[in-house]
């Protein structure tokens, strides 16, 4: 393709192109991780007592645990599960924040103060504590954790969207539209929503790291996904019992993979924001 063309290679890419390239590259990596996690069959993590507790080797890149399960496969499966939970939670959260942000900024003063009060309410308890409470209320498991993440992570994005809509509201075309007798709902739908869609996309991507880290944390504490599932939090909390015997690979590799994935999403989100919203790029 183009890469073989030396002329093109010598020409330095501009910042926009580089950002796009980084985005695409990182997205491909994430997709590969998710796909392999889904496609790996259960046999890969079957109990195999002959190779128990073996440190990392070429056969088992991340070593094996006390049941002889291959940690590399378990980590990949855990990652794709965590990404799924994180994404669902982040999207749910973003939906809530878009609705509330729009309501606050367009429905008048009373609605605005109610939404601000709600934001304060949800920020006033530490995330982890409210996650524990919600997970407890729904009896743990997938439902509890996704609901918990969706219900606790929206306030920061809602604030951003609210101020964004407030800005758009004072612009000329909205004023004209109002004078022409369009209804509030119509203006919101036709003029406001298109403006905040980019913000929302970036918001989901930047919410995602928090969502996935909190998912792993709550699962680690034992209130999240059930122990049968190969989630990263489960793997790490199980590994705690074997750390004092020196089996460091049980905790090290899954954790660092989680770190990489989270960092990648963060990077994609930052880059996308730079492309969409150059004014705030330096922040």
């Amino acid at each position: 393709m183009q890469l073989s063309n030396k002329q093109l290679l010598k020409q330095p890419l501009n910042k926009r192109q580089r950002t796009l390239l980084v985005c695409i590259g990182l997205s491909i990596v994430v997709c590969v991780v998710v796909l392999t996690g889904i496609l790996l069959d259960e046999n890969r993590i079957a109990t195999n007592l002959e190779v128990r507790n073996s440190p990392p080797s070429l056969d088992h890149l991340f070593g094996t645990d006390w049941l002889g399960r291959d940690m590399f496969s378990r980590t990949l499966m855990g990652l794709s599960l965590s990404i799924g939970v994180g994404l669902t939670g982040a999207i749910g959260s973003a939906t809530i924040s878009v609705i509330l942000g729009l309501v606050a900024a367009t429905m008048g003063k009373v609605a605005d103060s109610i939404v601000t009060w709600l934001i304060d309410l949800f920020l006033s308890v530490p995330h982890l504590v409210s996650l524990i409470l919600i997970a407890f209320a729904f009896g743990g498991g997938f439902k509890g954790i996704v609901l918990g993440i969706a219900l606790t992570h929206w306030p920061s994005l809602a604030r951003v969207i609210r101020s964004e809509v407030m800005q758009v509201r004072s612009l000329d075309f909205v004023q004209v539209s109002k004078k022409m007798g369009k209804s509030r709902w119509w203006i919101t739908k036709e003029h406001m929503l298109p403006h905040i869609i980019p913000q929302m996309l970036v918001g989901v991507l930047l919410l995602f790291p928090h969502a996935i880290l909190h998912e792993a944390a709550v699962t680690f504490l034992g209130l999240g996904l059930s122990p049968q599932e190969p989630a990263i939090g489960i793997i790490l909390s199980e590994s705690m019992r074997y750390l004092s015997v020196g089996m460091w690979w049980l905790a090290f590799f899954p954790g660092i993979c989680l770190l990489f994935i989270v960092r990648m999403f963060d990077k994609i989100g930052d880059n996308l924001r730079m492309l969409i919203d150059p004014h705030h790029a330096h922040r």
Partner: protein
Amino acid sequence: MRWQLTWNIVTFLFWKAIKMASLLVAISFISFLLVKNSPIDPIQAYVGADMLNVSQEQREKIEEYWGLNQPVMEQFMSWSSAVLSGDLGTSMIFRLPVSEVIGERFLNSIALMSVAWVLSGVIGFSIGILAAMNTGTWIDRMIKWYCYTLASTPTFWMGLLLLIVFAVWLNWFPVGMGVPAGVLAEDVTIMDRIKHLILPALTLSIIGVANVALHTRQKLIEVLSSDYVVFARARGEKGFTLFWRHGLRNIALPAITLQFAAFSELFGGAVLAEQVFSYPGLGQATVEAGLRGDIPLLLGLVLFSAIFVFVGNVIADLIYRVVDPRTREGKSYAVKQ
């Protein structure tokens, strides 16, 4: 002037108190409903494995004794009136009054959190300054990279790494617990306590550095590009003197308020760090309460954590109002108009 300032603060605190009260009422109501909604049966959680020996009759008696057969709203009213009179109920797992459990655990936690809070504040502030004074160099890039990476690091994983390196490989610190196992309470020395505190506190501080550092860096870069610094540079000031005369005061305040406003994250981090090192603090109590269905304790902890976070936020606001001469003058100016 002086009177004006005090008056401002009093009205400010008054409104804050009202807001706190409204939030606390809402939080207790919502959490009560959530907990009631839970599929975990409180009687089973209380009795535990002996549940098979409990007959239907006894069960109903317990329900009646606890008031579980009444409508939810009535239960809420009786619980909240008890809370208002200072009675948070009895913890099921510790078999002690909830306020006592929280008080004791809070002492442990506050030791851990304050050490981590001060450490992360000081270190974060310094490396933020270091990065901003050397913008664009490898120092700046490294610090930035470090902070962004830390922001994506799971707290508990960091704790596990420290545990592997310092407790298992190097054997410098004990593996967990607040005090050595099998030692009587009166024999525990202050050294023992400190030893058990270091690793969890270190975990929290390593993670907590990122926020302050990035914020300080950002602020200082803004200050350094302002007119008065450009003028000072033109006069020949540079390096540390320049920072000391024109930078420090401008960035110290936002950093301090940020630290106070970060109480929520500090609490969340403490939950994880305490769990990893099985340090007997508030966070561990929260997890235990959630796992074993100790409803009174869980509700008490939710309320307590909300107050804790709120106090942090109020202090942050107050510092801004009292210390920063600009907001003070701005306020009185606005009042005069």
